[in-house]
């Protein structure tokens, strides 16, 4: 064989099989979306010659690792365990739990964190009660700690894993689980050795989302005084009033993010668990009785109570306590802003993610794969850093335009309108959309695409008539995840909003940052409600018994 074909083969593996228009589109979108993140890193590297990393950066790295590990384990155990419970067993309240366990997704970690601390911290009712009973010297575990942060974040983030794991378990055919059981595997073993490995791609996707949320969280960890690398970014930024030095640590956060994404790919392990033939109905549920049934119900209801019901009640109590104040007349505006923003961002993110999935399906090659990966980094970078990146890119664009002779450049495009917020939110939240939609694409056998193409369908027709209908569930999940994320997102909106633009999350922040928690309870409840709507839509849309096949 001459060397030429080999080289050509290598080039093609990078460039893909020549759907140039589609590939170019994805590469372009990838470049646009990653631009702000890249800008921050470039700016940081170029701009910070003499700044030094904070003294305890090593501790921060370890703290971040421990936090990631803790929250990873916590969400895995809660998410996968509860998913197994509701898909493999029957017990009282199972039907309720199977959808209600998704609800904590609507609870932002910073709100649960606050409720948790105000309840369990030294001045809270629990410790006060303990002191009353046992005296001032009673020993209580330190709630304001890494452990506390792990608990709170696990409780709010586990639904990512639960949602994807449950879907994966339900979509598996009953036979594999039953085969394992007849081979003498106990229920636990069948779960560990058969259900879990088969659900691996979904679990990996869910865990990756959890990890990235954990990595970029700033508010919750600060409540708990846990100094992660993300906290470091803010510490340096605020300590030195110099973003350049902060971007160096932001780059460190990126290193974590890359490691996470690589880890996710490895976990998914190239293998595609597309089950051939029949679409599964999940394992036949086994009825639990007596003690075991009570235990199962208690586990589910307990998690739901701690993660959702109790904090919502607490917020309601606070909100009622503050109800003497007149209702803010701008409430309607704030709500409309939040909702509109969420829908627009979700529409853009889902479109981008679908196009990426489609282009990859058409044989995009490594270039498209890399572009797809690039779009996901925004999620792993703290919101404020993405915001600064957007400002940077616009700044450069401005100067470029002025240099090219355009008077005034882009004008005040970014912070003078919501455009900046929109761009930044898309940069941040393409990742969850991509995860959900990509998982759906992965479940669709490649032969479907091949068949459609060889029947003469153009790539566009394959997209609309074959791919879209089949990744519908992924699109639904993606929409919900993005909507929830946007409604909860704070730093970006805070940084980039134009005058007169306030969302519900900003409102909560303004009140909460000065500890007006009773006043903040109402808008906080509103965030939960807003996030609840898509969660309920999702739950109903995904209930396998209600779904019309497929």
């Amino acid at each position, binding site marked *: 064989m001459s060397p030429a074909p080999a080289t050509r083969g290598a080039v093609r593996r990078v460039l893909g099989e020549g759907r140039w228009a589609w590939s170019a589109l994805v590469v372009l979108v990838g470049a646009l979306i990653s631009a702000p993140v890249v800008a921050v890193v470039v700016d940081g590297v170029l701009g910070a010659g003499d700044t030094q990393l*904070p*003294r305890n950066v090593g501790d921060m790295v370890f703290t971040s690792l421990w936090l990631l590990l803790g929250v990873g384990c916590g969400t895995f155990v809660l998410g996968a365990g509860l998913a197994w419970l509701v898909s493999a067993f029957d017990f009282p309240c199972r039907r309720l739990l199977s959808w209600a366990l998704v609800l904590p997704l609507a609870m932002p970690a910073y709100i649960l964190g606050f409720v948790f*601390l105000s309840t369990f*911290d*030294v*001045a809270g009712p629990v*410790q*006060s009660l303990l*002191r009353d009973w046992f005296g*001032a010297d009673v020993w209580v575990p330190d709630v*304001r700690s890494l452990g506390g942060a792990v608990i709170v974040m696990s409780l709010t983030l586990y639904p990512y894993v639960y949602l994807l794991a449950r879907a994966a378990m339900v979509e598996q055919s009953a036979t594999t689980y039953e085969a394992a059981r007849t081979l003498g595997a106990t229920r636990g073993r069948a779960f560990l050795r058969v259900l879990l490995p088969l659900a691996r791609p979904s679990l990996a996707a869910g865990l990756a989302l959890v990890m990235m949320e954990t990595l970029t969280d700033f508010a919750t960890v*600060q409540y*708990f*005084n846990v*100094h992660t690398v993300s*906290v470091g970014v*803010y*510490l340096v*930024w*605020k*300590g*030195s*009033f110099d*973003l350049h030095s902060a971007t160096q640590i932001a780059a460190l956060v990126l290193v974590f993010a890359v490691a996470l994404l690589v880890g996710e790919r490895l976990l998914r392990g190239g293998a595609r668990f597309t089950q051939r033939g029949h679409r599964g109905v999940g394992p036949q549920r086994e009825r639990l009785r007596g003690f075991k049934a009570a235990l199962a119900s208690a586990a589910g209801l307990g998690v739901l109570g701690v993660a959702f019901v109790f904090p919502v009640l607490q917020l309601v109590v606070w909100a009622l306590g503050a109800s003497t104040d007149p209702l803010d007349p701008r409430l309607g505006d704030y709500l409309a*802003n939040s909702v*509109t*923003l969420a*829908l*627009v961002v979700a*529409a853009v993110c889902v479109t981008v993610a679908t196009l990426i999935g489609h282009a990859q399906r058409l044989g995009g090659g490594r270039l498209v794969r890399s572009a797809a990966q690039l779009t996901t980094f925004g999620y792993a970078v703290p919101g*404020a850093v993405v*915001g*600064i990146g957007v*400002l*940077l890119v*616009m*700044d450069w664009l*401005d100067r470029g335009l002025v240099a090219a002779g355009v008077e*005034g450049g882009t*004008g*005040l495009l970014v*912070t*003078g*309108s*919501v455009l900046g917020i929109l761009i930044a939110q898309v940069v941040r939240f393409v990742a969850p959309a991509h995860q959900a939609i990509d998982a759906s694409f992965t479940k669709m056998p490649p032969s479907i695409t091949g068949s459609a193409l060889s029947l003469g369908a153009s790539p566009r027709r394959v997209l*609309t008539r074959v791919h*879209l*209908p089949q990744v519908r569930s992924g699109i639904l999940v993606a929409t919900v995840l993005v909507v929830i994320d946007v409604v909860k997102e704070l*730093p970006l909106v*805070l*940084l980039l909003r*134009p*005058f*007169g*633009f306030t969302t519900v999350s*900003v409102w909560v922040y*303004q*009140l909460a940052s*000065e*500890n007006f928690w009773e006043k903040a309870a109402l808008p906080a409840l509103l965030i939960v409600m807003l996030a609840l709507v898509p969660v309920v839509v999702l739950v109903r849309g995904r209930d396998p018994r209600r779904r019309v096949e497929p």
Partner: protein
Amino acid sequence: MRRSLLAASLAVVSVATSACGIFEDDEPADIQVYSARHYDLEKAFEEFTEETDLTVEFLFGDDSELLERLKKEGDDSPADIFMTVDAGNLWNAAEQGQLTALDSPILTEAIPEDLRDPDGQWFGFAMRARTVVYNPDSVDVAEFDTTDTYAGLGDPKWSGRLCMRDATASYTQSLVASLIDLHGRDRALEIVESWVANDVEIMSNDIELLEAIDAGACEVGISNHYYLGRKLDEDPDFNAKVFWASQDGEGVHVNISGAGVTRSSDNPEAAQQLLEWLAAKGQSAFVDNNFEFPVNPDVAPAELVAGFGPFERMPVDAKAYGSLNAEAVDLLAEANYE
């Protein structure tokens, strides 16, 4: 399926268009303020608008993020005034060329020299004291070191009795910066290390810290005085008292909330007018709402905080707070102060 796709795309289009509608800004206000204060300021400014017919609009945010935004927006920035809560922040904004020098006799007259920029780029309008707060049931005021109360909290007798704010709080950083300024880095490090050695309990906000003192979970803490004002306003029986720190020494550590007119302001006259109003006529309305102390010596503080008694204050050294902040952060890390 096709129909639902159609419906979805219609929805997207209509949402997008309505978004443009909603997001279209109305006529901008006469004076636009980037503010890191979020204490329900509007009430004070409503009075200003009534008096002058000049409208004021706020954009709240985090101080360093707002500063970064101001820098990135450059000449296009809509902001006329940059308002923030730390003298170091103001000094930095001036240092980074974001503010304009004002020549205003009204301002220089109303505001003490150390609470404003010598070049007139920024001015303090409200003052807060970061002092010691204690639970009177478990602490005798005689226990405090009256010369250097902050350093005195490192005495082993306070072991297990202390609560303080976290290292990420700008309040903590400014206090430590002032200690570095006052005593030099080595002594400041010793002081912070002695707090850590006393097993200080770290809280994530001042209100929680005060509630811990009230509940008896902590005996002594360091807090901004106005948080206690707020708590006492809600509940007169709140069981915590102010002790003015270092009265026989350098005085209590204070910081300011201040503002300057931005470099890019397209309405500097109106902005200056607002600042002058804040320093004089609007001073009470501005500070009392948040139980802060007025900077203008001719204006009396609110009754509740006046009840904390008179005190000597440390001079504010904005340059020190601003330039030593990074060192303070580093020192806190070195002392393992969380």
